[in-house]
């Protein structure tokens, strides 16, 4: 059962931000509602007003602007898994979206809602970190860009201010020789562990850049610079043999918590396994690309 609330339907970000400022804790942004309505039905939270942001024009688009892919906060997971620009430019992101939740949640839940809710057992944050994404937050009087790494503060907590909205996600196009992968594992409805990996090579066989992120295991997704250093400036083969060590470092950094999804130790082990598989996947894609 849902309690009665009032619905506001602003038609600009400014208007939505002003409503948030005016009503404070009594109001909340509503996008797809797949998280918010669940929490309200359970009686975990209660709001006098919901602010439907789906009437604000322009927030539901995916666009390629120069060498940046701009995704509004409002496309649903289904929109994203089917988007032709993303399929061509960011297949690892599309693959992740294809495997979020179930078909009904994907049809309604938005990317922005997923990120803003900051549920620990979520996929997009981890991928966005390795893709080098920036999130754009806007309120009535200002706009700022937040690197994905800095967006998540804790479980269910982001760095957004009370009257700020997430409006855009900006992802730089993949460098020509680079590859990315996101792998997850879980046996409940939501993932237990997720690992993102990005590798860029120089003209030869040396790894010029590496990014590793882990999610779901702990309270928030995280980049693991220390593990990345173990792969950088290595040949593909050297990096492959450094993976076990990188996996241990990443597992430790994940702050894994023992819960219904598995013990902390188990999740740490899975981080290592997924990192190895992600590396194999990217290397295989690279060699099949070079054969073409």
């Amino acid at each position, binding site marked *: 059962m849902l309690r*009665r*609330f*009032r*619905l506001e339907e602003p038609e600009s970000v400014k208007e939505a931000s002003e409503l948030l400022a005016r009503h404070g804790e009594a109001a909340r942004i509503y996008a797809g509602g797949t998280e918010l309505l669940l929490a309200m039905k359970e009686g975990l939270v209660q709001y006098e007003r919901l602010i439907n942001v789906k009437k604000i024009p322009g927030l539901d688009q995916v666009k390629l602007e120069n060498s940046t892919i701009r995704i509004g906060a409002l496309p649903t997971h289904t929109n994203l898994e089917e988007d032709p620009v993303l399929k061509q430019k960011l297949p690892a992101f599309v693959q992740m979206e294809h495997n979020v939740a*179930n078909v*009904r*949640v994907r*049809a309604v839940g938005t990317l922005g809602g997923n990120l803003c809710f900051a549920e620990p057992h979520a996929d997009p944050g981890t991928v966005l970190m390795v893709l080098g994404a920036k999130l754009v937050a806007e309120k009535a009087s200002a706009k700022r860009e937040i690197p994905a790494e800095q967006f998540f503060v804790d479980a269910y907590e982001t760095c957004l201010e009370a009257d700020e909205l997430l409006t855009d996600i900006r992802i730089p196009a993949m460098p020509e020789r680079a590859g990315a992968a996101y792998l997850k594992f879980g046996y409940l409805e939501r993932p237990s562990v997720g690992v993102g990996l990005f590798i860029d090579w120089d003209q030869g066989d040396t790894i010029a850049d590496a990014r590793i992120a882990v999610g779901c295991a702990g309270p928030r997704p995280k980049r693991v610079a220390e593990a990345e250093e173990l792969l950088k400036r290595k040949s593909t083969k050297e990096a492959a043999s450094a993976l076990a060590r990188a996996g241990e470092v990443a597992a430790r950094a994940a702050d894994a918590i023992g819960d219904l999804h598995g013990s902390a130790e188990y999740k740490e082990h899975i981080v290592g396994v997924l990192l190895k598989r992600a590396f194999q996947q990217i290397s295989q894609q690279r060699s099949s690309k070079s054969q073409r």
Partner: protein
Amino acid sequence: MAEGRLKAEQRQFIPVTFTLNGKPQEIQVEPHELLIDVIRNRFGFTGTKRSCDVQVCGACTVLVDGRPLSSCTFLAFEARGRDVLTIEGLAQNGKLHPLQQAFIEHGGFQCGFCTPGMILAAKSLLDQNANPTRQEIIHFMDGNICRCTGYKKILESIQAAAKTLRQRGSRV
């Protein structure tokens, strides 16, 4: 008393014009009303079932603009301007849809509680993809749970219906 009246005055009604099982409808809903309750209580289409209430099981699946969603967690006002299909809207002129027929012929249900949702989700899949692989069916149907039939017969029913629909499509 005064408070009660104030609350009543504040009640908000949203006009919703939409199509339900092919018929245009015009209703007023309050913001907090859920689609499942409107479908069941106002229209009497009780084939839409509430079970988990948390978007996990799929018993409450309806199609909105051809896509499956959980009516247990979907606000009714969002149906504005959209096309809603429940299991009651599937048979045409008294003739069952090939999916319904296949579920009967291949034993795709036992108690039947999950069946409306299963069939609607499968319809959405087959409308997008006339010839899905086994793996594609499993991925799409992953969020529809059955606690008694077992998934093998459900899969067979969907595959059989897909075949019937393809044969029918190639005849026209």
